[in-house]
């Protein structure tokens, strides 16, 4: 387990910034906005950090990361929230477990009607007929977070077309390409938390 390097941090943030807006800064800064000089040790310990362990990136409070140093590397299975993993080519792949981190800061959103929830959760793309509503002025090929009509995040994906274009689309046309959905918790149960 180790902190991220410069390039790794940049890759991770650029991936996260695909889905989130400017409020991503809240991930790094602790919830209380106290200047650094007057921060107590407790605040510092509660600050969230990113840690890399066996090519996976975890997001966790600092005190937990410090505690985890006492566990030997082969014995440490997982810690904090897994954000995703670095591929061997140095790219970053977000996992569904990162949904809880990115959903509150989502830039663009798509709400799926109840009849489209199951097709999405089984790994299908979002078609126009299933869209309840969507964020306006959304360009194509940007990250979106998919919600159900009760505002529960179901997963995330990439827009296939801009909102203006998808208005003219036929009902069976794909609006959002799926990247991860919460159905993966069951489908990929074996590989999601350990390689």
């Amino acid at each position, binding site marked *: 387990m*180790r*902190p*991220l*390097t*410069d390039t790794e*941090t*940049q890759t991770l*943030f*650029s991936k996260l*910034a*695909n889905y989130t807006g*400017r409020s*991503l*800064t809240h991930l*790094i*800064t602790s919830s209380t906005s106290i200047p*650094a000089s007057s921060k107590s040790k407790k605040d510092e310990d509660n*600050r969230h*950090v990113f840690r890399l362990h066996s090519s996976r990136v975890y997001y966790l409070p600092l005190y937990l990361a410090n505690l985890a140093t006492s566990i030997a590397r082969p014995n440490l299975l997982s810690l904090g929230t897994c954000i995703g993993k670095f591929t061997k080519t140095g790219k970053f792949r977000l996992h569904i477990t990162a949904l809880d981190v990115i959903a509150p800061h989502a830039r663009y959103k798509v709400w799926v009607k109840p009849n489209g929830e199951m097709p999405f959760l089984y790994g299908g793309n979002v078609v126009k007929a299933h869209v309840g509503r969507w964020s306006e*002025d959304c*360009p*194509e*090929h*940007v990250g979106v977070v998919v919600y159900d009509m009760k505002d529960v995040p179901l997963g995330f994906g990439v827009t296939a077309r*801009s909102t*203006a*274009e998808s208005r003219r689309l036929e009902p069976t046309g794909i609006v959002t390409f799926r990247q991860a959905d919460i159905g993966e918790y069951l489908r990929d149960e074996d590989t999601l938390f350990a390689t």
Partner: protein
Amino acid sequence: MAPIPKNKPSSKNGSKKDGVTKALSKKSKNRLSKPQTIKPQKSHVPQKKKKRVYTEKELGIPKLNMITPVGVEKPKGKRKGKVFVDDQESMMTILAMVNADKEGQIESKMIKARQLEEIREARRKEAEARQVEKRSKLEETKDSLRKKRNRQSDTAIPLVDESSTAKAKSTRKRVSFR
């Protein structure tokens, strides 16, 4: 290329130095605190002129002609290992950079999409106008044809009728089964 050995006077003359310092120490006890300042070598051995050590850059040797391959050699003076980013400030600067980059990308995408949309709209309008024009032309030709037919019917039809009735009377063959 074999590396040129450097002169290491301190290791070579260690034993001699000791002997001399001992001798000297008797003479000048009050200056014992600084035995290294005295340079006894000069008197015994004429100091070798230090050979100049050329770096590989100076010699102009091609880069491939080395013991270590080009990619493997680590830059000198740099710290070994990775440099971690763990403090909040540096993370914030990286994040700000990434954010600005993403904003720019999205902005340019939006502008592009808007331009494309405008072009598409203009094209659609043009097509619509063309269709309307085409339809009106078709209507015109239809009207003209209709008018022409009407004019012809006014003049020609009665004539045709007369001749046809006359002809029918004269030329039509009739068959009666009786």
